[in-house]
C-alpha cells in the first residue's frame, strides 16, 4: 500500500473520529462511546491486516531463500512488536470506552486504563531513539 493511500486513510479516520468525539462531548448525540470509537476500531483492523499481509509477504520471500536466518528472526520480532503495540492501543481504547460510558463510577481503575498507553508511548520513544541513533551513526535500520 503506497504512502499516500495509508496517510489519507489515517487522515480520514482521525477526522471522522474527532467529529464524533466533538458531537458526543458537546451533547449533540448520546451515542455509546464504543460507537464513537468506530473509526479507531477500523484503524486497528487496518493495522492488523497490514501487519499480517506484510508478514505473509516476508514469509514468501523467506521461503524462496532470499533472506538469511538472522534477518528472518529480526523480521518476526519486529512484526510481533508491531502487533503488541496495536493490541496495547486497542486495550487502552476499550478500557477508556468502558470508563467513559459510566463516568460516575468507572468500573476499571484509571491506573489500569492508562498503563497500556504509557507502555505504548515508552516503547515508541525507544523506537524513535533507535532510529535516531542509527541515523546519527549512519547505520542501516533494517
Amino acid at each position, binding site marked *: *500500500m*503506497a*504512502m*499516500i493511500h*495509508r*496517510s*489519507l*486513510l*489515517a*487522515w480520514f479516520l*482521525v*477526522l471522522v473520529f*474527532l467529529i464524533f*468525539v*466533538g*458531537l458526543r*462531548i*458537546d451533547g449533540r448525540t448520546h451515542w455509546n462511546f464504543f460507537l464513537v470509537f468506530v473509526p479507531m476500531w477500523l*484503524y486497528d483492523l*487496518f*493495522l492488523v491486516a*497490514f501487519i499480517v499481509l*506484510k508478514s505473509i509477504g516476508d514469509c514468501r520471500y523467506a521461503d524462496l531463500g532470499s533472506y538469511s536466518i538472522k534477518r528472518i528472526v529480526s523480521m518476526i520480532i519486529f512484526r510481533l512488536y*508491531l502487533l503488541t*503495540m*496495536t493490541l496495547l492501543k486497542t486495550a487502552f481504547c476499550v478500557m477508556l470506552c468502558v470508563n467513559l460510558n459510566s463516568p460516575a463510577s468507572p468500573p476499571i*481503575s*484509571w*491506573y489500569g*486504563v*492508562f498503563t497500556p*498507553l*504509557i507502555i505504548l*508511548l*515508552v516503547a*515508541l*520513544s525507544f*523506537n*524513535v*531513539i533507535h*532510529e*535516531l541513533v542509527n*541515523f546519527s551513526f549512519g547505520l542501516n535500520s533494517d
Partner: protein
Amino acid sequence: MLFSASELTLWFGVSLLELLIFLTCGTATAVLVMLRLTGALTSSWLVLLAPLFVSDALNAYFCVIVLIRMYLYSMLRPGVLRTMWSTGVIALSFVFKFLLCRRLDDPGGLEFSAVLAPIFILLQMLMIRACHFKTGADLA
C-alpha cells in the same frame, strides 16, 4: 504501526528529535492525567498539560536553530519554508492545548467543537501535504 518513523517525519515535516521530544512529553502528560483522574493530584489542567507546552517550546527552539544552521549553509529558502510549516503546526497545537485547558477547567465555557477547531485546520494542512506524495511511493 501503519507508518515507520521516517514516513512520519516526512508527512508531519518534523525531525526525529522533535518526534522524540513530543513522545517523551506525551508520556509525562499521560502519567500526570492518570494521577489526576485517580485523585492523587489536584492541580489545574494547565499544570497537568505543562509537559506538552514544554514540548512546543523545545520544538520552537529547535526550529530556530535549524533555520540558523540552514541559513549558514546557504539554504535559506528551504529553511524558511520548513520554519513556516513548523511554526504553523506548533501555533495550532498550542492554541488547541490552551483551549483544552480552558474547557477542562471550566466545562460550561467553551464548546468542544470550538476547542477542536485548530486540530481540524491542522488536519487540512496534513491532508494537503499527504496529497503531495507520489502514488507509487512506498517507504515501508
